[in-house]
Structure formats: C-alpha cells, structure tokens
C-alpha cells in the first residue's frame, strides 16, 4: 500500500520531460505550471479509474481491463487518445508474452515439475483471465 503521501505524486523529472517534448523548441514551463499539470495528471488518473470502475460494475465485472479504460476514454471525450493507446497495448501484450515465454523456457531448463510455485501460477492464471477478458 501507499506508505507516504509523496508516493502518490508523479515524478517531477518525467512530467517535465513529457511537457518539454510536447512543446516547440525554445519554449519553457514555469514551475507553477508544471505543478498544475502534474496535479491535473493525478486527478485524471483518479477520474479515469472511477469512471472505468463504474463501467465495469455495470457489466458485473470485478476486474477493470484495458477495454474498460478505452471505452471510458471514448465516453469522456478523450477518443483522440484511443488509436495511439491501442497500438501501445499491442506492443505491451507482445512484450508480456515474450517475457512469459522466456521465463517458461528458463523454468523448463531448471525444473521438470509443473507445480513450481503456487503464488506464481495463481498470478499467471489471473493474467490469463485478464487476457481472455480483453479478447
């Protein structure tokens, strides 16, 4: 869980870089403006989460999925984000898949048994559920 309140702030350096990349060369951002944008970003996370949660509950889903997030963005007039996000999600799924495969291969090398660790297999099952939900 969250131990310190600062853990809920987004990292300043990353925010500054994201802003800088979005603006034309030679422009600057005042510290107050950067803080305002960072706060807005945190509020955006909370806003999107609560909307997605409401959406998932309406469909009797306990887990919110990427699909819920995309649908929420569409409903909240952020549909311009969706195409780029869909691409990113594909890249993410591929990365997770590759990681899983390489992990499975290394596991096979080390141990012959199938029930290695109950916790990791449970996590894998949960991940598989999520993927099913997304399809």
């Amino acid at each position, binding site marked *: 869980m969250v131990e310190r309140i600062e853990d809920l702030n987004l990292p300043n350096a990353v925010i500054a870089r994201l802003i800088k990349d979005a603006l034309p060369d030679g422009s600057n951002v005042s510290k107050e403006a950067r803080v305002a944008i960072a706060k807005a970003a945190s509020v955006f996370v909370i806003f999107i989460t609560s909307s*997605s949660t409401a959406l998932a509950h309406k469909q009797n889903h306990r887990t919110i*999925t990427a699909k819920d997030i995309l649908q929420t963005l569409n409903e909240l007039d952020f549909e311009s984000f969706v195409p780029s996000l869909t691409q990113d999600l594909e890249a993410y799924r591929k990365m997770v898949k590759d990681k899983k495969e390489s992990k499975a291969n290394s596991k096979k090398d080390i141990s012959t048994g199938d029930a290695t660790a109950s916790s990791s297999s449970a996590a894998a099952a949960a991940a598989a559920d999520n993927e099913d939900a997304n399809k």
Partner: protein
Amino acid sequence: MASEDLFQNDYSEEPDFGQDLDKNEEMNTEAAAAESDGEDAEPAPAPNQTTNMSPPANKTSNGSKASEPEPDGKLTQLPMGRIRNIMKLDPDLQIASNEAVFAVTKAVELFIESLARESFTYTAQAKKKTVQKRDVELAISAVDSLIFLDGALHF
C-alpha cells in the same frame, strides 16, 4: 613569510649580475612567479603534471559498457507502480488488470502532452515563451473534456 619574501626578492635581483647561474635560474623562475602573483612567494604548481592519464582510459571502457541499451525496454515513461497506487485510492476499485494500469499510464502521458500543448496556445497568444499557471488554467476552462479538473487545482 614576509621576511622570506624579502629574501627571495633579494635573490631575484641578483641574476642580473650573472652570479651563481644554476641557482639563480631556479630562483629567477620562482621570483618571476612571485612577482606576477603580486605577493605570494609560493612556487607556482609544477606544470608537468602528466600523471592523470590512465583513469580516462578506464572510464571509456566503463562508459561503453554502461551505454549499452537495456535488454527489456520500457514502454512507459511514467512508473506504472505509482499509477497503480493512485488508482487504488478508488474505494470501488477491486482489481485492475496489468493491461488496464498500462493503458491508464499511457493515457496519462498523452494527457500531459495534450494539456501542455493546449496551455501553450495561450502562452503563444500572449507572445510569451514560458508557460505560466495562468495558461494551464485558461486551457482547462476552455476545453470541455477538462471540466472534471475544474477546481481541482486550487488546494
């Protein structure tokens, strides 16, 4: 120290007379340094310090190792763990899949960029180069989809 200064200055005047050439050459350089410094008679640091040549070689070998790209490239710039923690503040949230957290993280990155761009239009209108808080507030009140931020920045 003052008496030493005087002493050396005395010596430094003597080379003009050609006495004790070896010693006087040494003293001459020292005296010249002292004179150019104005007061200190301390010998200037030796110019032949050529000892620190090996460390850079080590550095380059280390540097080339460090500059190699990491095998597992990051897809997000913002930390997903942090985003998940913020999402968990929602009491109604039970489980968020990793993909959902990833989607939110990416969405926030896009959000920051678009809010920055939107704010900058007001900066440019005012013929300025630095985005001020005022510009961000103007952008928020002008864009319909940002209405959820209304009042959120004043705490």
